[in-house]
């Protein structure tokens, strides 16, 4: 029997939109300009790490990364249709593409990660097995578990691609507080058992800058992801 789960049974964990390009050499000259431009839209933005290859900025809205061949925005504060996320992406990507004079994106990707928590690892593995996503009889394989604990599908043609990955896993969040602060800052060591649903929707063919609008593309892809994932979780019915 197909699973009764839908995407709404999972909690949105993070969304990332990434642009890749070939010649972002102006990163060596204009990272500061990017930061200055970003401050107008994200007043609390702060530098997190800086190196010639990668600079990370953090703000209340999320994390911004710029690299020689890619830039990305990741946020954990997600509205249902991704419209606010798309607005922040547009602001950030417009600034980066203007400053780095990027004309063509070699890949645009939207990666949405969802989590559903279970009490035990067995429960999460059972939930994944009950989806019957892979047409395999439950039997011990490779001297390991009876059912796969991770399932990954990829669909791709010459223009568009997508992956859907489901994994029963335990996530650990650890924050090591320096010894001198341990009395005032509680140590963080959290384990979360559950199913991770990880969707990556991306372009395969290059995209010209004049073709792409983050505020139009992203909410549309949020809706497509929801529709397709629901269909997959329901056993492939369209």
């Amino acid at each position: 029997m197909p699973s009764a789960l839908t995407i709404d049974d999972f909690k949105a964990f993070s969304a990332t939109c990434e642009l890749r390009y070939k010649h972002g050499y102006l990163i060596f000259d204009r990272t500061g300009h990017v930061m200055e431009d970003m401050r107008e839209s994200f007043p609390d933005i702060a530098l997190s790490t800086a190196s010639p290859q990668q600079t990370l900025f953090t703000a209340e809205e999320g994390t911004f990364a710029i690299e020689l061949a890619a830039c990305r925005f990741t946020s954990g504060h997600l509205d249902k249709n991704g419209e606010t996320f798309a607005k922040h992406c547009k602001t950030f990507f417009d600034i980066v593409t203007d400053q780095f004079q990027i004309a063509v994106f070699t890949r645009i990707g939207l990666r949405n990660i969802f989590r559903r928590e279970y009490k035990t690892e067995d429960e999460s593995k059972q939930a994944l097995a009950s989806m019957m996503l892979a047409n395999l009889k439950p039997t011990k394989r490779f001297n390991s578990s009876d059912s796969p604990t991770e399932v990954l599908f990829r669909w791709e043609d010459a223009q568009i691609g997508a992956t859907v990955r489901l994994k029963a896993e335990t996530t650990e969040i650890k924050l090591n507080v320096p010894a001198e602060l341990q009395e005032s800052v509680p140590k963080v060591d959290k384990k979360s058992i559950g199913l991770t649903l990880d969707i990556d929707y991306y372009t395969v063919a290059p995209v010209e800058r004049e073709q792409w609008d983050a505020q139009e593309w992203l909410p549309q892809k949020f809706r497509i992801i929801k529709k397709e994932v629901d269909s997959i979780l329901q056993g492939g019915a369209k």
Partner: protein
Amino acid sequence: MSETAINIPKVQRHAPPQSPDETGTPTTNRSESTPSAVRGIVVETHGATAIAPVIEIDRLYEAPPGTSSQIVRALELLKQAIDFLAEAQKSNTPMEADRFVQRAQLTLPKLFAYRSIGDGFGVIINSLHFAFTNLRGTPLTPDQLNAVWRVLRELRARPVLPLEQGIQRVEELEECGLEVDPPDLGDLLEDAESASNE
């Protein structure tokens, strides 16, 4: 006087080895995979291949029917206008061609509603509207018809054109004799008066 620095180490997020075919994210760690690529050698198998043609606009914004996306509706209208103009180009008589051009012209007010797609989009649609207004019913010449068709095709392929590129396309329209500036206010008032007398 400066303070004595206290060195609080930053919490390092995992920087997972990204697969070239997955969107990078700072919150996942796929390091349990056995690395298979030889360090330093990058094999590009996806979009980054330079010889690949750019994505088709309809695939980029492919959406389920009935979508409320502005760009999807604008692309549909642009396709209608381009198809009418293509029919006009193929027409045997000027009368028949003009009928198709008039049908294409009817899409312009609807397209104007989507001018927020981009500054280039807005300036082209606006200019075409005034170009038809200034013709005052005179049919387009074959050169003008080709130019309008070409500019709309270009706009459909790259709807998020910046203003400068939009202006370049408008200049192409002007070069074939189309007047793209708004008629004088006097003309507008004259038109309004004659319309109210009818």
